[in-house]
C-alpha cells in the first residue's frame, strides 16, 4: 500500500479511534477535548496527504471486504469526494474548538457522549466521501443517520425525542424505501455498483427504468432535503448548536447532496442524464424548494429555524445545479457544497455564540445585539453575504457557475428561481445584522462576547468565506476534473 492509501484508510479510522481516548478521559474534560482536537488535526492532515496525491493525478483506492459478489466495501479518492472530505475534515477542527466553548458555556449534560458520537459521525462522513461504490456510500450514509441520532436527541426532553423520531423516520424511511431500492435495482441492471467515470448505464437500459431510478435516488437521499422530504432538518435543530453547525449545515446534509452529485455523475453520467427528461422535473422540484423555503425562512423568528430553512433552500441550489445536467451546473453544485458549507457554519456558530452569551434564540429579541457582540455580528454579516452570493465572499463563485449552468439549459423559470432565491436570502438574512446594530431596547452597550474558543472558530470560518473568494481555484480544478468542460 502506498502512503496515500494508508492516509485514506486512516482518515476514516482516526475519528473512529478517537472515541477510545475520548471515553477514557470522560472525567477529565481538558484531556478529552485535547483528544478531540488532536484527532481532528490528524484527520485533516491525512486528508491533505490524500489531496496531495489526487492533485498529482494518483487517486488512491483500496478494497476492504466483499460481503457478497459484485458488492464490496471499497474506497477511492476521486476529486468530488476529495473536495467534500477536505471541507468536512477542516471544519471538524474548527467545530471542535467551538464545541469546547459552547458545551461548557451552555452547561450541556453528557458531554462525553456528545464528543464520541460527533467523532463517529465525522468518520462516517469521510467514509461516504471516499466511497468507491454505491454500496459503501449507502453503508456510511445509514451509519451517519444512526450516529447523529443521539446528537439530535441530546437534550433528552420530549421535544428532542419527537425530533429524533421524525429524524429517523424520514431519513431511514427514504433511504430504505427509495435509495436502497434504487441501488439494488442498479446492481440488478449492471451487476456492480462501482462509481465509474462516464456512468455505468448505457443505451441498452430502458429509458423508463432510468428515469424512475433517477427520481428514486433524488428523493431517496433524504439528507439532501428535497421537498417534500425536508421536514427532518428543521426539527433536528433541537440539537446543540455545534451539531446543527457542522452536521446539519455541513456533514450530514452535504453527504446528501454529495451522494446525489456522485450518483448523477458516476452512475448516470452527464450526457445520459441530460437525455433523460426527469432531470428537468427534479430541477423544478429543487427550484420550488428554493423559493418555498426562502418564504418560510422569512416568517421564522427563531434564528436556528430560519437558518435551517435557508439550508434546505441552499441544498436545493446544489441539486438544481446537478439537474441542469451540464458541466457548468455540476461544477457550480460542487463548489456550492464548499461555499455554502463555510457560509452556513459561520451563521450557526454565531447563533450558538448569541445563545451562550445572551440566551437569546428569537430574532426579534436580538435588536441591538451587535453592540454587545460586535465580533459575532460581523462574522454573521460575512456569512450572510456568502450565502447571498455577493463579493467579497466565496459564495459568489458557486452562484456564478450555477447561473452559467442554468442559462445553458434555456429554462428561464429556473433562472428566475435562482435569482429570486438569492434575493430572498438577502431579505431574510441581512436585516438581522442591520437590526443588530440598532440601539438596543434596554440600552446596554457593554461588550459581552461568547467564550474565546467560540470567537476563534467563528472568525476562522468567516475568514474562510473571504479566503475562498480569493482562492476558489483549487475547488474549481477538482470539479473540472470530473466533468468535460470542453463543450464550452
Amino acid at each position, binding site marked *: 500500500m502506498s502512503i496515500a492509501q494508508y492516509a485514506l484508510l486512516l482518515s476514516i479510522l482516526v475519528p473512529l479511534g478517537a472515541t477510545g481516548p475520548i471515553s477514557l478521559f470522560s472525567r477529565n474534560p481538558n484531556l478529552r477535548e485535547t483528544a478531540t482536537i488532536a484527532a481532528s488535526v490528524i484527520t485533516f492532515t491525512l486528508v491533505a496527504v490524500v489531496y496531495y496525491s489526487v492533485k498529482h493525478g494518483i487517486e488512491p483506492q483500496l478494497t476492504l471486504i466483499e*460481503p457478497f459478489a459484485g458488492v464490496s466495501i471499497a474506497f477511492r479518492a476521486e476529486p468530488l469526494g476529495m473536495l467534500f472530505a477536505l471541507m468536512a475534515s477542516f471544519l471538524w477542527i474548527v467545530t471542535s474548538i467551538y464545541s469546547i466553548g459552547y458545551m461548557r458555556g451552555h452547561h450541556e449534560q453528557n458531554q462525553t457522549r456528545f464528543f464520541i458520537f460527533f467523532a463517529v459521525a465525522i468518520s462516517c462522513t469521510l467514509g461516504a466521501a471516499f466511497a468507491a461504490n454505491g454500496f459503501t456510500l449507502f453503508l456510511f450514509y445509514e*451509519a451517519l443517520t444512526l450516529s447523529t441520532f443521539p446528537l439530535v436527541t441530546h437534550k433528552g426532553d420530549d421535544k428532542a425525542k419527537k425530533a429524533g423520531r421524525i429524524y429517523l*423516520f424520514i431519513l*431511514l*424511511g427514504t433511504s430504505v424505501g427509495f435509495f436502497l431500492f434504487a441501488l439494488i*435495482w442498479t*446492481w440488478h441492471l449492471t451487476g456492480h455498483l462501482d462509481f465509474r467515470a462516464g456512468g455505468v448505464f448505457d443505451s441498452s437500459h430502458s429509458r423508463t427504468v432510468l428515469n424512475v431510478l433517477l427520481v428514486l435516488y433524488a428523493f431517496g437521499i433524504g439528507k439532501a432535503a428535497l421537498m417534500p422530504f425536508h421536514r427532518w432538518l428543521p426539527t433536528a435543530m433541537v440539537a446543540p448548536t455545534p451539531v446543527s453547525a457542522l452536521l446539519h449545515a455541513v456533514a450530514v446534509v452535504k453527504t446528501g447532496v454529495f451522494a446525489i452529485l456522485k450518483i448523477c455523475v458516476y452512475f448516470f453520467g452527464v450526457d445520459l442524464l441530460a437525455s433523460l427528461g426527469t432531470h428537468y422535473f427534479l430541477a423544478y422540484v429543487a427550484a420550488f424548494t428554493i423559493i418555498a423555503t426562502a418564504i418560510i425562512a422569512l416568517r421564522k423568528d427563531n434564528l436556528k429555524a430560519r437558518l435551517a430553512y435557508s439550508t434546505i433552500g441552499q441544498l436545493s441550489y446544489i441539486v438544481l445545479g446537478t439537474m441542469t445536467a451540464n458541466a457548468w451546473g455540476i461544477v457550480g453544485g460542487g463548489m456550492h457544497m464548499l461555499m455554502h458549507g463555510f457560509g452556513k457554519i459561520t451563521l450557526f456558530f454565531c447563533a450558538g455564540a448569541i445563545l451562550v452569551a445572551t440566551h437569546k434564540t428569537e430574532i426579534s429579541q436580538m435588536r441591538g445585539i451587535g453592540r454587545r457582540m460586535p465580533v459575532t455580528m460581523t462574522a454573521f454579516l460575512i456569512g450572510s453575504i456568502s450565502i447571498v452570493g455577493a463579493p467579497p465572499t466565496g459564495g459568489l463563485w458557486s452562484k456564478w457557475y450555477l447561473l452559467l449552468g442554468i442559462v445553458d439549459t434555456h429554462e428561464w423559470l429556473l433562472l428566475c428561481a435562482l435569482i429570486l432565491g438569492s434575493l430572498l436570502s438577502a431579505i431574510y438574512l441581512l436585516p438581522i445584522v442591520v437590526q443588530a446594530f440598532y440601539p438596543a431596547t434596554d440600552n446596554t452597550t457593554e461588550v459581552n462576547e461568547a467564550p474565546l474558543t467560540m470567537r476563534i472558530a467563528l472568525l476562522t470560518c468567516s475568514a474562510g468565506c473571504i479566503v475562498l473568494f480569493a482562492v476558489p481555484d483549487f475547488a474549481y480544478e477538482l470539479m473540472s476534473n470530473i466533468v468535460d468542460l470542453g463543450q464550452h
Partner: protein
Amino acid sequence: MNALTPHLSALQIILPLLAAPLCTIFRLPRVTWGIAMVVGVLCSFNAIAILEQVQSSGTIIYALGGWAAPWGIEYRIDDANAFVLVIISVINVFGILYARTSIPAELSEDRISWLYTAWLLCFTGLCGITISGDVFNVFVFLEISSLSTYVLVSFGTDKRALTAALRYLIVGTVAATFYVIGIGLLYALTGTLNMADLAQRLPEVTAHRTVLVAFGFITVGLSIKMALFPFHTWLPNAYAFAPNAVTAFLAGTATKAAIYVFMRLVLTIFPAGFFANSTIAYLIILAVGILGAFVASTIAFFRQDLKQMFAWSSIGQIGYMAIGLGLATSAGVAASFLHLFNHALMKTAVFMAIGCLFVATGSTTLNSLKNAGKRMPWTSAAILIGGLSLIGIPFTTGFVSKWYLVTAALELDMWWLAALVLAGSLVTAAYVWKFVETAYFRTDSNTTYTRSEAPLSLLIPTWILVIANIYFGINAQFTGTQALRAANAIFGFSS
C-alpha cells in the same frame, strides 16, 4: 472415526434419541444438562461433518437398517438439508448453553430433567424432519418434535403456558392430520413414500386432480407447522409463555425445519414447475407471505410484552421466507434459505437477551424496560442489534437477507414486490423503535438506577450469537454461497 463416517446421518438421530431417556434416569439437573450439552456439541460437529461430506462427495444416501429404498427408510442429505441441519444443531448448542442458568431460574429442580428429556426429543425430531428422505418418516419426526414441544411450552412459569400448550396441541394435531392426509393421497396415487421416488413418479399422474388436493393438504399442514400467516395462531402464546431458553431454542429451530420440509415437498417432489405453474398456488403463497409480513409486524407494534412482540415479529419474518419461496426461482429460494439462517441467528439472540432481562428484572414487559439501556447495557444492546438486524440495517445479517430477496424479486421484474419488501422494513422499524425508546429514552430522573446486568453465563451465549449476526452481516460470502447451493439442491433433486 472412519468406521463411523458412513453412519454419520444415523448418529445425528440416534445420539439425542438415546440421550433423552438417560436424562430421565439420572434426574440430577446438572447431570442432565451435561448430557444434553455433550450430545448437542457432538451433534453439531456431526452436522458440520455431514455438511463437509456432502460438499466433497455429493448427496449422502443412507438406507436405515440396510433396507434399500423405496421399501426401507432412507436419509437423504444434500446441500439444502445439510445446511439446515447445521443451523438447527448449532442453535441447539447455544440454547442448551443458555439454559444452564436460565432454566433453574424458572423451573423447580425436580422438573429440570424432564425438560431436558423433552428438549432432546424435540431436537431429535427436528433433525429427523430435516434429513429424512421419506415423507412418512418426516411425519413421524414431525410428531416427535411437536409432542415434545407441547411439553416444553407447558413448562412455562405462567399458568397461561398450559393453555398455550393445549392450543398448540390442538392446532398442531390438525396440522399433522392434514399433512398425513396429503401424503396418504400421494401414496394412493404413486404407491411410494420415498421422496426421490415420488419425484420421479408424480409427473406421470399430474393430470389427476388428486395431486392438487394432496398439494393443498400438505401445504396447509406444513403452513401451520411453520406458522405461516394466517395459520400462525399457536405461535405467539407458545413463544411468550414457554421458558425463555425454550423460546430461544424454538425460535431458531422449530419453524426452520418446517420451512425446509415445505420447500422440499413443494419445490422438489412436485414435478418441476408444478408449483410455479399452478399460478394460483404460487400467488397465494406470495400474497400470504406479504400479508403476513405486514400484518404480523403491525400487531407486534401493539404488544406490550417483549416476548409477544418478537413472537409476532417471527411470524412476520416467516412471511419474508414465504415470499422467497413463492417466487419459486433459485434466487428466491436462496433468499429464503439465507433468511432462514440469518433469522435463526438474530431471533435466538433476541429471545436470549429477553431472557436475560427476565432473570434480572423478573418481567419481560415493556414497562420493566425503563432505563434498561443504563441498567443493563449489554442486554439492551443485544436486543437493539437484533432489532436493527430485523429491520435490515447494513452491517447486520438482516441487510443481506433483504438484499437477496429484493434482487430475487427484481430478477422477475416484480419491482412492486421489491418495493413492498423494503416498505416492510419500515413497519419492522416501528416496533423495534418502540423498544429503543423505552429502553434508552424513557427515564425517570428522580430515581437513580444501579447496574443490574444479567449473569455472564447468560450474556456470553447471547453475545456470541450477536457477534455472529454482525459477522455474517459483513461477510456474507459463506452464507450466500451455502444458500445458493441449498436452493440449487432443492431444484435439482428430481434429476
